[in-house]
């Protein structure tokens, strides 16, 4: 958090003249601080403060027993890392690793499928076409339906006597705890979220200047080459951001499996669902510990993702910066 504080601290005094042509580094710095501070302020208040409060909570235990009259003993006890080590012991370790592998499984399958389907959607939508604005708006539909409602819809579709089995002429028990339940969640989740990727890639495509393609055509590049050499590199930043945030979301997935299959179901239990279960049984310290562990896992994945694939989201700016500086010198 120190960086936020530093940044917002830097932001406050920037009430000075912000808009003089910021040629000098000092001016740029001040302008940057001014522009960044509202975002950082909101995030510090809405997310930072609760998260820090949660982290503190994870080091404490409370409500551990009943007194002689049957009341829960009040007050809390500093528990150090007990809430964390407890996650990896006994039955709870099994539950944790089960949820961990479910979470990872959902992330891998849904993000890959969403990306492929989403990019395909965007490429199709990018064609000039009569009535395409209607089709474009229609791809918003899955994303726009509140998760609670689409979860219900899919729950009904996946009932033993529902539409899915009628269509497949099968008698699969999708909503019972088991492997089909996993599939049901993946299908519903991919349906709901591929439009998200599709929309963002489409926006990226629309921002590619047309002359780039014309130049390529003059150079004799075929459609496939154009896709790999021009389209993909140019929409890459938008695509990577979309995929990154999809990963963050699915790693924290809760609503959909809970509505579609239910809570406490081994086959679809995710890490957030365990944290939810702990909290709803008043073990806030333990819940916060799960949330922190989940955060570390997500941060690791996001870091690897940005390092391996998305280096240029950030690196590009650095390059530009250097170029600019050189030009100025």
């Amino acid at each position, binding site marked *: 958090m120190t960086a936020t504080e530093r940044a917002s601290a830097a932001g406050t005094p920037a009430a000075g003249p912000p808009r003089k042509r910021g040629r000098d580094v000092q001016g740029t710095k001040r302008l940057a601080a001014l*522009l960044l501070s509202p975002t950082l302020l*909101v*995030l510090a208040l809405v997310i930072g403060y*609760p998260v820090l409060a*949660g982290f503190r909570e994870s080091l404490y235990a409370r409500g551990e027993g009943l007194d002689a009259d049957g009341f829960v003993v009040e007050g809390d006890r500093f528990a150090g890392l007990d809430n964390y080590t407890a996650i990896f012991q006994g039955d709870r370790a099994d539950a944790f690793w089960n949820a961990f592998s479910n979470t990872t499984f959902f992330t891998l399958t849904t993000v890959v499928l969403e990306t492929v389907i989403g990019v395909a959607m965007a490429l199709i939508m990018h064609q000039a076409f009569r009535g*395409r*604005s209607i089709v474009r708006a229609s791809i918003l539909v899955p994303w726009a339906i509140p998760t609670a409602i689409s979860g219900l819809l899919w729950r009904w579709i996946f009932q033993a006597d529902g539409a899915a089995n009628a269509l497949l002429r099968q008698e699969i028990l999708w909503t019972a705890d088991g492997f089909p339940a996993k599939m049901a969640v993946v299908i519903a989740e991919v349906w709901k979220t591929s439009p998200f990727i599709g*929309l963002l890639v489409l926006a990226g495509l629309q921002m590619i200047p047309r002359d780039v393609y014309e130049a390529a055509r003059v150079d004799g590049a075929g459609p496939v080459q154009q896709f790999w050499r021009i389209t993909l590199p140019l929409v890459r930043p938008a695509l990577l951001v979309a995929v990154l945030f999809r990963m963050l979301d699915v790693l924290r997935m809760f609503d959909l499996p809970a509505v579609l299959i239910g809570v406490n179901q081994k086959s679809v239990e995710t890490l957030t669902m365990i944290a939810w279960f702990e909290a709803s049984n008043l073990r806030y310290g333990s819940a916060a510990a799960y949330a922190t562990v989940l955060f570390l896992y997500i941060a690791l994945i996001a870091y690897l993702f940005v390092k391996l694939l998305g280096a240029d989201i950030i690196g590009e700016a650095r390059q530009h910066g250097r170029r600019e500086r050189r030009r100025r010198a």
Partner: protein
Amino acid sequence: MPQAKRLLSYLGFAAVAVYCLAPFYWMAISAFRRPQDQFDNSIVPSRWSWENFSAVFSGDNGFGRALLNSVIVAGTTTVLTLLIGTFTAYALARLQFRFKNAVLGLIVATSMFPGISQLVPLLKLFTDIKWINTYQAMVLPSLGFALPLSVWLLTAFFRQLPFELEQAAMVDGCTRGQAFRKIIVPLAAPGVFTTAILTFIAAWNEFLIALSMVNKKEMQTATVAISKFTGVSGFDQPFGTQMAAGVVVTVPLIALVLVFQRRIVAGLTAGGVK
């Protein structure tokens, strides 16, 4: 050859439409069934009925008011997110300063905690400052949830545009602000618009915060109102009513996008002509 290509893209469009709309069709058709045929599997209702829709809007649900509240909350959130997010994204995309990666990292890190962990501390805070039953108690958290994605997206979109354009404008005598408003924003219009839609939908569908921060019926949003739909007895699930409500909250959103798509994009782009 062009004929075949045309046919192919038709097929592509059809595939996309079917993929996105088939489950939605099922939802709409379930909403149009009579409550007693609710669980039929026929592709078209045997008897059409508005009963579920009139149940959605029946007097004591206050659903009309709830829709209005949703529009206010999601609309405000979207405008503020875009405003604040654009500033921040501009700084991240176009300005040189240290710790840029740290700031980007910090912003994305706020999207890595389960959303449920923010609730109780915020409830406590808002109770203390008497924000319970206010719009800002719903808008501010939604803003916090929406900003990370918006900032990253806008940063990516702004970076996608060539630097030279802006610099040329500044050489021509534009201030940095003018160059940004008249060159960058119009060119990035599709990206900005898409970000706006995504923010609006996210805020529109927010439930937890809206449920916890408000206990007056006049202030509740549509998703909260839907959660209060009931069947007749307490065990039976108001599936049809919920599906009808799903249609009611989704269709206007799509219509809105359709109407505004051209207008907003055109408006943003027009600003850049000059």
